[in-house]
């Protein structure tokens, strides 16, 4: 019992509860002093903010900074003692590998949660008529599904980046280890707040939260806004850390064009997330204040304009999807050479294509607003910019194909997921242009076609590569490998089930099924397709369950692998598995190219033997 309460996470949550109650009480007291009656909504918002702060203080992420502020001596991050054993995953650790796993846990939990929401509303949709959900419950579930999974993606990306990047560039840790821990722990109260939206009234708007609808209606939307705001800050600070790490902490000899391609992918991703994310925060903040204080940004009766929200919101939310896929595409580029046993084709072009996608990604947000009634002269330019993103994306596909071409391909589970990712992302990419062209989008917007399109891009660009990454780097975390049998079962169930789901979705979207509808007219002939999609969804979930079982079993009893299992040239595979505490016992130096697979006697990195007596 005592051990349970000594866990940082538990202490943090208790402090969050205390802080929330205190905040609510404080606001109530202030209002009472001003002669105003109790109002739950502002109390909840204020309480939520205070609770997040007390969580972070209570778990101890701010203690060292507080000491610094008071001028007290503070040890260097690498000298801080790490709690031994499994308990260290439940409290503040400054070790990027621990933080990476922590993000991974949170990401898997939110993955299961968001996926379960989908199974619930898909069950409702399997038949026409409102069977067991009412409108508000359905609308809340689809909104939660979207945003909880977005949070899961952000955290999964942070998991991969945190664990792998320092190892991959030959660094001991991230540039700012305390900021790293702080960024992770922010995501916990943020997620708690986000999920609480379901329990304080739900919300009707879907994850896009458009006003005026989000200004009216149930209070759950405030918890949704607050949760996203805080998770967003986690993302901003985490990516700031990554940029500094990648730019400043590479091993000697590792010029930018000699670093692993995944580092380029994370650099491009981090540039987007450190900047654009502020805009979803701002747009949500504005709706929150419109609700709380009547500030009429988006209310036409006050002179406001709902389209402004859409501009601000999508200015983040479009680049956001590149945040979601660039790391996974980087994983694909990183793993293909290892399993094809030949160099990544056109390394520089692939590296710069990530930056190209990041840059052009900022210029296309209007394609979410083709039917919105925005200024007419914006539609055609946004169409041009949107289709332009296909160029750097195409470079990636062609480079992947050229990397595989005339290789000696091997197909362990990570490679299956890499190839699956390419296929699924191809589907996503090919179904994009009809939505990117204005006149065809007038038909497609807000239908299941769009749902199919973005599930393809999300699974192809994130989910499949995420699984590939976990199967691939699992030995570096645990010193064991995951079961190949279960891994293959996971893959061969997931791929066909998922394609059945998305092709079904795109088909009925084209034929007239709108998205975000709790019910549909049986006479439209969509019932059978919806049933198939629901079944496919359950199969997808079942495959992920197999994966979770694999994770659990393999961490305990998986085959021990201590060396370079995949015969990779990359730095993290030149050290023992699991990766030792401070990563590299001796510093490494770059002496060759990262992807010269097949070039005899060539090495990428070697350890710098320290002269005796240092």
């Amino acid at each position, binding site marked *: 019992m005592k051990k349970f309460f000594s866990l940082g996470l538990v202490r943090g949550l208790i402090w969050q509860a205390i802080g929330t109650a205190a905040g609510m009480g404080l606001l109530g007291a202030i209002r009472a002093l001003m002669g105003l009656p109790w109002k739950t909504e502002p109390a909840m918002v204020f309480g939520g903010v205070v609770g997040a702060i007390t969580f972070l203080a209570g778990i101890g992420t701010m203690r060292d900074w507080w000491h610094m502020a008071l001028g007290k001596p503070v040890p260097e991050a690498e000298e801080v003692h790490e709690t031994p054993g499994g308990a260290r995953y439940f409290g503040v650790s400054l070790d990027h590998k621990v933080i990476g796993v922590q993000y991974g846990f949170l990401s898997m939990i939110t993955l299961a949660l968001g996926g379960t929401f989908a199974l619930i509303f898909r069950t409702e949709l399997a038949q026409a008529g409102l069977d067991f959900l009412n*409108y508000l419950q359905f*609308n809340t579930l689809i909104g939660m599904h979207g945003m909880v999974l977005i949070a899961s993606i952000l955290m999964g990306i942070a998991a991969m980046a945190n664990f792998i990047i320092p190892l991959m560039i030959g660094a001991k840790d991230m540039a700012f280890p305390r900021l790293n821990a702080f960024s992770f722990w922010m995501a916990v109260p943020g997620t708690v707040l986000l999920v609480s939206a379901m329990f304080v009234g739900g919300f*009707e*708007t879907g994850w896009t939260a458009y006003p*005026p*609808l989000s200004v*009216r*209606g149930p209070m759950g939307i405030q918890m949704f806004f607050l949760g996203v705001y805080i998770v967003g800050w986690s993302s901003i600070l985490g990516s700031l850390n990554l940029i500094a790490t990648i730019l400043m902490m590479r091993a*000697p*000899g590792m010029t930018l064009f000699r670093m692993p391609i995944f580092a380029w992918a994370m650099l491009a991703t981090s540039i987007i997330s450190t900047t654009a994310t502020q805009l979803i925060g701002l747009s949500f903040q504005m709706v929150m204040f419109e609700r709380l204080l009547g500030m009429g940004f988006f209310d*036409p009766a006050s002179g406001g*304009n709902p389209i402004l929200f859409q501009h601000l919101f999508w200015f983040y939310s479009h680049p956001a999807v590149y945040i979601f896929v660039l790391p996974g595409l980087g994983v694909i580029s990183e793993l293909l050479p290892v399993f094809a046993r*030949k*160099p*990544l*084709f*056109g*390394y*520089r072009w692939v590296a710069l294509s990530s930056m190209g996608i990041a840059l052009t990604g900022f210029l296309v947000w209007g394609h979410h607003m083709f039917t*919105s*009634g925005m200024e007419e002269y914006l539609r*055609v330019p946004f169409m*041009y910019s949107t*289709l*332009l993103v*296909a*160029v750097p994306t195409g*470079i990636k596909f*062609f480079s992947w*194909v050229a990397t*595989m*071409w*005339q*290789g*000696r*391909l091997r*197909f362990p589970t990570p490679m299956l997921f890499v*190839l699956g990712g*390419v296929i699924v992302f191809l589907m996503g990419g090919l179904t994009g*242009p009809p939505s990117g062209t*204005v*006149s*065809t989008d*007038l*038909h497609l917007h*807000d239908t299941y076609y769009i749902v199919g399109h973005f599930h393809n891009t999300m699974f192809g660009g994130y989910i499949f590569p995420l699984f590939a990454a976990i199967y691939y780097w699992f030995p570096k975390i645990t010193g064991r490998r995951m079961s190949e049998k279960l891994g293959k079962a996971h893959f061969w169930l997931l791929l066909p089930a998922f394609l059945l789901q998305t092709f079904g979705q795109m*088909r009925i979207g*084209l*034929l007239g099924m*709108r998205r*975000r509808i709790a*019910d549909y*007219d049986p006479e439209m002939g969509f019932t059978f397709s919806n049933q198939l999609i629901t079944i496919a969804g359950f199969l997808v979930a079942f495959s992920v369950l197999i994966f979770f079982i694999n994770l659990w079993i393999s961490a305990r009893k998986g085959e021990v692998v201590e060396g370079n299992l995949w015969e990779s040239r990359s730095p993290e595979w030149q050290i023992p598995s699991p990766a030792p505490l401070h990563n590299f016992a001796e510093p490494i*130096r770059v*002496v060759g190219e990262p*992807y010269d*697979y*097949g070039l*005899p006697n060539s090495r990428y990195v070697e350890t*710098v033997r320290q002269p005796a007596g240092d």
Partner: protein
Amino acid sequence: MAGHAEQAPQRVLIASANPLFGKGLEKLLRQRWKIAPEQVRLAGEMHAALNALDQWQPDLVLVDYDDETIERARFLDHLIQGGGRALQVVMVSLRDSGEVVVYDRQTFRGERAGDWLEQPWPTQPPSQEQPRRQDGMKHFVIVGVLVVIFTVLTNFGLQSAGLLPVQASAQATLIDQLFNAHYWVISFLFSLIGVFMVYSIVVFRRRGENDTQQGKFFKGSTKLEIFWTIIPLGTVLYFSYLGSLSLADIRRVEPQALVVNVTAGQWYWRFEYPETGITSGSLVLPVGEQVLLKMTSADVIHSFWVPEFRVKQDILPGENLVKELRFTPTLTGEYKVLCAELCGGAHANMNAPVIVMDKADFAAWEAGEMAAVSSDPAARGERLAKNNGCLGCHSLDGSPLVGPTWKGMAGSTHELADGSSVTVDEAYLIQAILEPNAAVVKGFPPGVMPATYADQFSEQQIADLVAYMQSLK
């Protein structure tokens, strides 16, 4: 500026702590390359070696390292940080496995860099399999043919799968043409990437668990990169251009369009024909004539969409934010307008009939609507109920929808949400229309029925509605 094996180095520096080794190596090199004694220097320790590196500037350095007297690391630093001249550094250690490592630094500018990329790799060791050029071509031919076949097949599949609803507007025909253009590109790219991938998976695979062969070593091709950047760039620019033409086509203005004012609200549609003063809950249209919808919302964002017409337009609240949509129906029939922007609550069921009739029938309909100003209050009430979306939430057949059914409602007794009970008399019905949330019947959601009817209906109209409700036994 080259340092290729075919030519000879100009200045060779040998760094070795072992004088015998150094001298022996020097002799070997001078025989091999026919170079003069002053072109070779020996250095027995780091200080002399680094001096020579800096000042004498050799283009080949042979390092016999032991990492005590002669340290590899510092030579490598030099290789990495030194100036732009060509430099080869050969690392050998008599104490280690006899492995020899060659670092070859060359610096090129501009086209020379491109030339260098095209050259065959000079130090390919003999043990590496060299597939003949013809083999490479064979693969491309097979793949090429397969790509063409699959492109045609895929496109055929997409076209014949009946993916789109019937074309019931001029806009639909134009938009579907653009869809067809997209299908071609999708088919081609799908086949291109797919065939290459599947072919690679099948043909270029590892032969058995113990196959340690590596893949064919090539790192890139600037020509190819430029090619597969320029072609897609041209394609997307062309498609954007096609898209802009398509958009202009579907937005073509016909001066004599039929104007219909559309009001969308939670969760109903109302259509008003300003020319004839008709109000209707269905959108009735003549075929072949352009329609101009002027749309506003009573509350939140909605969106007008008829799949068979293809075009869609969001509807905003605010008098200054009226949005227009033009289309020309080309096929008579009955369709539905679906709200295509999540508007909360019963968004899924926010539909209204769209009826396209030929011109004569439409004229007849218009005439009928205008004449139907009845003297019977209940009949007037019935029209009001139909035309203002009431029946979207209140049924006439006894089934509860979002709101209570009107069948048999008047005169009955109901329990309210607060537990009290009420007799549904005239006063209650009037209150229920003007102040919907004042006394909600138990089991029905509050806050759903619009509270705007006080502004919308005159007293007479309210009385007519009540008369209609009272007539429904």
